[in-house]
């Protein structure tokens, strides 16, 4: 259990360091290193925590591995990785599973799981690092207006309005 935690921690550090890589290459690198760890642990003469630590030590720091992704002589990339100042606008990660689920929930989700679907979707949107705060606010406002307006309209019109039919919330 302790050895699993060591590997998990190492992979988490690698993923964090690899955030600045293109999404495709990031996933590939993590897979490669994960496979290497499994093969190396299997090849160790002994098992247990010491063996796993030995394997991870030989691999090197996750930050060093990600640093080696930088093409030699690429000054702009090197500057971006050595400059730790938080004011530098880091490149945002690409669209991943979280973003896809978030978008589906706030759009199609409104039809299948009214209110709750878009609500979870908005939470996911705010958890994502792919969008700026401005975009998150716009998405939240649009979803609130589209989801809440028909409900308000439904209550005020007493269920008689024809406009309500075009709302994403199924009228029952």
């Amino acid at each position, binding site marked *: 259990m302790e050895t699993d935690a060591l590997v998990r921690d190492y992979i988490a550090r690698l993923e964090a360091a690899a955030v600045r890589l293109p999404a495709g*290459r990031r996933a*590939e*690198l993590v897979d*490669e*290193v994960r*496979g*290497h760890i*499994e*093969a*190396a642990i*299997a090849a160790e003469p002994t098992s247990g925590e010491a063996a796993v630590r030995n394997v991870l030590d*030989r*691999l*090197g*720091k*996750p930050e*060093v*591995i*990600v*640093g*080696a*992704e930088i*093409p*030699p*002589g690429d000054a702009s990339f*090197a*500057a971006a990785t*050595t400059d730790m100042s938080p004011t530098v606008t880091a490149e945002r990660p690409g669209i991943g599973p979280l973003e896809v689920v978030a978008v589906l929930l706030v759009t199609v989700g409104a039809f299948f799981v009214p209110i709750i679907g878009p609500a979870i979707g908005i939470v996911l949107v705010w958890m994502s690092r792919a969008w700026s705060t401005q975009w998150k606010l716009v998405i939240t406002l649009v979803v609130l207006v589209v989801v809440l307006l028909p409900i308000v309209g439904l209550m005020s019109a007493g269920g008689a309005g024809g406009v309500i039919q075009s709302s994403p919330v199924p009228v029952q």
Partner: protein
Amino acid sequence: MVRGETRNQATELRRGVLELCVLAVLQRGESYAFDIVRDLSDAGELLTSEGTIYPLLARMREQGVVTTTWRESASGPPRRYYRLTDGGRRALVGMVGDWARFRDGVDALLASGGEVRRGD
């Protein structure tokens, strides 16, 4: 900034030599990353951080000096085998020449205690 540049030069020097070593290992025939790492460390601790082989191999794939094929393995998941391309073979020849000149120059300088002999 100067410190960063010095660090970069050292990194570039090691990377250049490492690429030559990987090309040399693959000259014998195709191999997969884990075995390439083993060959490099058996040859004398040429990789200080084994994990950096993956960024290097990715760059060599992009440059077209190696091609890869996925093959089933008797133990564990499929392995990605690396093989030299014609371009890789040409790059190896060029780098072997560069390396020999570089090594001879450094060796000669060290052997003479820093004294540069001219003419002769």
